[in-house]
Structure formats: C-alpha cells, structure tokens
C-alpha cells in the first residue's frame, strides 16, 4: 500500500515535469531560439500555389506569438480575401494601398536606406567574426554613425561568431522584405474593411452578419481551392478573415 502511494506521488512529479516541458516548448518561455524548422516544407496550398513553413514563420514578426495556427491564418486570409472580394464585387486599387502605407515606407529606396545603421552593425559584427579587433571596428565603423558601444555589443552577442549566419543577414534586402509584407497586410486590412461594409449593407432582420460572412468565407475557400497538407494546422474560421481585431492595432489606448 505504501509502495502504491509513493508510485502515485512519483507519477505526479513526472506529469508535472512533462507538463512544464510541454508548456515551455509551446510558449517559448525559455527565450531560447526554437529548433530549426524545415522552412521549405509545404504546409498548404491556395489556388495550386504552395505555402511553405517559412512563409508561416515570417508572420511571427507580425504577431510575435508562437501560436502557429494564428500565423498560418494570416497567410491563408491574405491569399483568400481577394477571392472573397471578387465574389462580392468589391474592388481596390494598388494606389490606395500605397497611400495607406506608413509614410516611412512609401519610397522603397529611402526606406531601404534607413536600414543602414543595422546593416552597419551587421557588417561590423562580420568583421569581428572574421578576426578584427572589436574596439577598432567600433571606433572606425560605428561611432561616426552615432551607434553606441552597447548596441554593438548586443549585436555581437546576437550574431555570434558564425560569419555565414551574418552574411545571410547581409544578403537579405530587409527594406524590401518588410515593405512587401506591409503592403500585403495593408491590402488585407483594406479588403477586410470593404468586405465588412459590403456584408453589413446586406444584413436584414432575418439575415445576420455572421451568417453572411460565414457563407462568403466558405465560398471563397472553395473558390481558392485551399488545401491543408500539414495536419498541425486547420482551416481558418470566417472570424479570422472578418474580425477587426486580427492583425495590428493602431489606436491610442
């Protein structure tokens, strides 16, 4: 009998440890970088075009959450909303989207140029990774740009001593990448707003907004031939497409 009680207690401890481990992995609470994923793996397709794990992961910088279903929904909604707009007869102009962009992003070249301080930090980190003296690199390359020693040291820690990793960072056109993503997000925001207006105008005492939105979303998913290939994800509900709370918030609290 005593042995049984001890066994039960022991199993509780094991369960607690297991749950803590699962929680830590699920939330990323440790602050550690997650195990590298197969970024090329296709997790779904829309209109025959694959969506890779990498594209889903890129949405982390939109929501800063480890909830992959939410990141997945952003990508699906972004691809499917134009279909919904066509079904509903909603139109948009690219010029409208450009006008909605934050001012700093409107001109690609100047926006790209604004990344220079961070690129300078990366180039300096690469020099250190290749054997240059950090003090010399800081005095020569970063101080004249108004960058602090603290910023340099933080970047040295982040980039580490792997020159390939730093070169990978330097090879990316970050300005264009972030701007393109913002354009896609802005398009989604504009279409969501217009579709909500269109649906709201059809609401009657017997037909609710929810039923209209749900029906339109089903039609759009079907029209866009959405297929989920990774069972870790499930099809987004209509709320993911038409709920205003999804995405970013810009109001002053």
């Amino acid at each position, binding site marked *: 009998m005593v042995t049984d009680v001890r066994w039960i207690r022991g199993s509780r401890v094991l369960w607690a440890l297991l749950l803590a481990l699962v929680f830590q992995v699920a*939330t*990323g*609470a440790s*602050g*550690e*970088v*997650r195990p*590298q*994923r197969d*970024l090329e793996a296709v997790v779904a397709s829309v209109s025959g075009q694959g969506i890779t*794990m*990498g594209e*889903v*992961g*890129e949405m*982390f*910088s*939109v*929501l*800063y*959450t*480890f909830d992959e279903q939410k990141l997945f929904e952003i990508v699906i909604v972004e691809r499917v909303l134009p279909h919904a707009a066509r079904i509903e007869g909603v139109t948009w102009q690219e010029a409208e989207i450009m006008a909605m962009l*934050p001012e*700093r992003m409107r001109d690609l070249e100047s926006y790209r140029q*604004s*990344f220079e*301080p*961070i690129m300078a*930090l*990366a180039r300096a980190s690469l020099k250190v990774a290749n054997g240059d003296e950090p003090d010399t690199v800081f005095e020569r390359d970063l101080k004249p740009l*108004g*960058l*602090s020693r*603290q*910023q340099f040291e*933080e*970047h040295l*820690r*982040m*980039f580490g001593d792997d020159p390939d*990793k*730093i070169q*990978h*960072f330097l090879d*990316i056109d*970050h300005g264009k990448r*972030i701007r393109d993503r913002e354009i896609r997000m802005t398009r989604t925001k504009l279409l969501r707003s217009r579709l909500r207006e269109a649906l709201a105008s059809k609401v009657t005492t017997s037909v609710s907004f929810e039923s209209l939105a749900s029906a339109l979303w089903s039609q759009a998913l079907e029209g866009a031939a959405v297929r989920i290939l990774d069972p870790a994800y499930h099809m987004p509900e209509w709320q993911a497409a038409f709920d205003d709370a999804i995405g*970013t*918030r*810009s109001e*002053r*609290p």
Partner: protein
Amino acid sequence: VRTAVRCLIIMTTILLLSPAALYAGCTLKLQNITSVSYEYGGVWYETITYHYGWVCSPSAYPPGDPGTGEPSSPPPSPAPSPVPSIQIDAISDWNPEDLRLFVTWSNASNFDLYLGGQFRGSFATYEVSLGSLQNINRDGVTELEVVAAGPGGQARSKAWIDRWVQQSQEASSDFNVRWSYTDPFTGHPTVSDMDVRRWLSTRFVRTLYSCEVYGPRNGQYFHEKVFDDLGWNKPVGVAFTSTYSLSAPVPTHHTYPCYASRPGYVAAGGCAEPEQFSRAFDHRGIGRIPSGGLQVSFPGSTGSTVFFGNELVVYPW
C-alpha cells in the same frame, strides 16, 4: 550633468536726496528688483538689480516745514492722534522658498499679518517673509491682509495670491524604432521596425498675485507632474527611460523608468514628479528619451533595439 552658474549681483542704490530724508522717520526701502539673464560661453549669468528709495511717513514732516509746503499755524490745543495707514506694495517670489511681502505703513507701532484668514504675527518692518510658496494653497485664492492699528484708528490693506493647477499643451512626436533579433522559426538574425508616437505633457501649479511683483517670477510655474506616454501598433513590449529637465540656470534632471504593462502591449507610460519651480526666464520642460533609452521586447526576444533618441519640449502657456 550640472552646469555651474554664477550670479553676478550688482546692487544699485538710488538715493533720493531730498531734504525730507534728513529727518528722522524716513527709511531706505527696497522698491523693486529687476533681473537680466544671459548665456555666455555655455554658462548662465543672472544680473540682479535692487532699487532702493526713501520712504517717509507723513508724521516725519514737522508742521510748517518748507519742504512740505504746509503753512505755519499757531500750535493747536491737543492734536488728534494721527490715523494709521498701511499698504501692501508688492510681493517677490524671486526665491519661491522664501516669499517676501513689502508693506508701507505709518502711525502705528507695528502691523498684524493674516494669511488665508490665519494670524501670522505682528511685524514692525517693511519686509516680511511669508515662508515657502509651496505652503500656500495650491488650488485656489488665498487672501493676504495687513492691519495697522494705533490710537488714531485702524487701517487695512489686502492682496490675493491666486494659485491653480494647469496642464500644459500636449507635445507629441512620431519616430521609428528598429530592432534586430534571432527569428525563433528560422534561427537566423532578422530585423523589424515600427512607428512609435510619443505624447508629453506637464501639470503645473501657476501663481499670480493681485499686487505688484518685485523681481523675477521664479515662483510662477511649479512643475508638478510629467506624463510621458508611448503608443505603438505591434504586439511587442516597449520599455523606456526618460529624463525631464528644467533648463536654466541650474539644469535638473528627473529620470523615471517606464515599463509596458497594459494588456495588448500597445502602450507604455511613465510619470515624473519634478516638484520644482522653473526660472523666470525659461519655463520650458524638456522630456528626453536618450539614444538607446528605449527597448523593444517580445517572447523569445534576444536582439537589440536601435533607437536614436527623442526630445519633446512642453511650455506652461
């Protein structure tokens, strides 16, 4: 950072050489204080000028004195007692921690002072310390009354100190914050950015007087509380450190840490309580987030924020 301040004090005495000054009963009395402040070589100088003059009570002039123009007359039988007179001339808050009251009075051995209806003492001087301005009601009108009493009667004079709480206009600015971090999905360093809006305002306690004021108005604006708010549109946390400075002649800095704590991670704010008067010639408050004084954070964050600082200026008017 403290800047050394040297005050060059020039005392200019204006002597009114009238014959009346030769009689007993006349007193040399401060009549005004003026100041000029200027910056030279990065150091603030303040030139203070004191203006003095002779104040004589009517009883100091003998009857028939040619200086007064009064005709001679035979000495009357018992002369009536002179009627006391009293007048609040001015207040000076040049040093707000030692508010000064200037009073002209005569035909009494002293006068009583009441502040906000409370008896504060009897005085036989022309200048009285009212103590710190901060001890006077910060949100309302306080009555100041002086009463001179003598055998010939009683005289009163009143003035009012009006203090009220006032919010500055809100200063705001938009700036961009950029940060690099290790992407938790790819394991590669990457970069992101966002626009941040900042709002700064200050709650002042303003003081006005119903009577004349001598000297620089160093007690006019008391910087009580500073509200420093940030708002942004991404679900990340922001922490910042800011300083609030009153610029001259002695720079003072108030540092206050601020942390994002509201649900949704879309705002951070902080308050500083400078609890300090600004100097008469510069009532500005300068709120500065120094370069590197703002950090962005989010789950799994391992990166560094690149931020070049932001400065906002608030004025009390």
